[in-house]
């Protein structure tokens, strides 16, 4: 399993509306030149708030499913 994943941004779906930027509790996201970037990846806690609030399905958080004892 990988150790540090970040939310995936589909730039074709993203309209740079900024809703996720405002919603991110860790302020990890920014709009730069009308493009969404994870500007502070070290602050991202993968809470998936960005995915929850995105009206266009442009941000996704995927999960590996495993047993805790693995």
């Amino acid at each position: 399993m990988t150790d540090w994943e970040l939310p995936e941004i589909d730039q074709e779906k993203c309209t740079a509306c900024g809703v996720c930027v405002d919603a991110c509790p860790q302020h990890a996201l920014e709009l730069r030149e009308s493009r969404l970037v994870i500007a502070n990846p070290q602050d991202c806690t993968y809470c998936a708030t960005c995915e929850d609030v995105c009206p266009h399905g442009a941000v996704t958080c995927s999960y590996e499913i495993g047993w805790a004892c693995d």
Partner: protein
Amino acid sequence: MNYDLRSIQLLAGLSVETLDTLSTCLQYKTYKKNGAILWEKDPCRWVYFILSGKVDIYLLAPNGREQLLERLGAGEGFNLVPAFKHGANNQANARAASDVELLRINKDDFSDSLECLPEFGKAAADYLAQRLARMVNLVENLSLLSVRQRLAAFLIKQADHHAGRWTQDEMARRLGSVRDVIGRALRKMEDESLIRFERQRILLLDRERLQKIADGEQ
């Protein structure tokens, strides 16, 4: 392009002679993640086999909601069924769930090969029987089980098979629900100490209790 035909489940047990004959009909294709491979109701033109990556097979409701039928991985085939029947259309949509490498065979070559290569025909029948059993299981789950039961069964299966990564939206499409419902069900399971979210992992904590939920005993 180097690939091993025996990595394809349907082809794995075939003789060298049969594989040599089939190889002349196979084309190599690649698709980027989220690329559309085929559309439901279009005339069937190709049968596909996955060399690497994952492919989502899904249906679309008139209101746009998706029902994910299967997420197929390396070695599996799709769009076989309409190739058995002359003039049939594709039965479902297929989309690359990751970057994929495929082999494809024209449906007429596939159909001719079924007749001319008996062991290929037998292998195709065996493979379709396995897939039909999976479809029956899916229908049973969708029609008879609650979302919570389906989710518990899904989580157990994915954990047992280390079957790749899923977004909550993809889980919802697989389980015949919507993202919000799946999200709430997962949070409830977390509150019940059945699972734990650990960054990009969902860790299952209690197989016995999850299995009881999947079996409808809790």
